[in-house]
């Protein structure tokens, strides 16, 4: 159909179980890391470092799930656009709302 037939078969990319197991292992390591990192007082080095580390690890984990478990890496461009849009709009909501609060004290 029209302009999207080229993408059709990439939907059916088969990912081997080995890849899945590797990703699973990586996710486990990250889970362990995030729990351990939370137990260290990183805020002493830089205020807010704890939450930054926690979120970076969580985002990394989520990316692994999207790219491999959900086949995001092998999906048509259209699907990738959909994924980017969801993240982008979530970011609009979070950042623009918080931009109000963090710039409140004024003068």
């Amino acid at each position, binding site marked *: 159909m029209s302009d999207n037939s080229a993408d059709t078969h990439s939907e059916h990319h088969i990912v081997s179980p080995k890849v899945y197991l590797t990703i699973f292992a990586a996710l486990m390591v990250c889970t362990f890391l995030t729990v351990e990192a939370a137990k260290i007082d990183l805020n002493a080095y830089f205020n807010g470092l704890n939450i930054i580390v926690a979120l970076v690890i969580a985002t990394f984990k989520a990316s692994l799930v*999207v790219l491999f478990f*959900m086949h995001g890496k092998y999906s048509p461009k259209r699907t990738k656009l*959909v994924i980017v849009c969801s*993240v982008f709009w979530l970011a609009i909501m979070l950042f623009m709302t*918080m931009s109000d*609060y963090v710039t409140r004290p004024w003068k």
Partner: protein
Amino acid sequence: MHRTGELYGQFETLDQQRETASLGMWVFLVTEVLFFGGMFMTYTLNRSTYPEVFGEASRSINLTLGAVNTVVLIGSSLTMAMSVWAAQVGKKQLVTIFLILTLILGTVFLGIKGVEYHEKFVEHHVPGLNFNFEPGADTATNAHAQLFFSLYFAMTGLHALHMIIGAGLLIWLIKESFKGRFNPEYSTPVDLVGLYWHFVDIVWIFLFPLLYLIDRH
């Protein structure tokens, strides 16, 4: 979602039908991201307003159970991915086995969640039901801790609801799979439920550090 592999009236080809279903699921997941997003926004603002109380309240929830649940849920994502693979390569029995494993892990997750909820209930940490953060806490701390727990229950509750819906879908898939319906030509339902299940996993991947891991040092 269609029960068999035949072509539905509004489509021209099976490929088009498959593509359409997959795009539909992805678009649905976008709405889910923003649905949870509203809660993440509420969480972000309140946590930045009351960092200390949020830390204190976070430390009162059971980290071990949360961590175990994370492992369980990621495990279930693995088995779900494997069942998609099994369907794609036509190993019909493996599909069923992996789907059942996913369902079991999902149920374990919900069970552990239930234990946690029970703990909170015993500790009077359920907002709206005789909430009392800790003996001697002043009104403000109590109110702000209640905010944390309101968010905790709203977010994990909504997540658990998604898990329950996912479990329902899995039971239906398992039934179909027993009839040997899924094969390399027709695995759309497994693919789609897989996408949904992984999404629910991703939500948890963020909920875990945000709710359980504030100021654990």
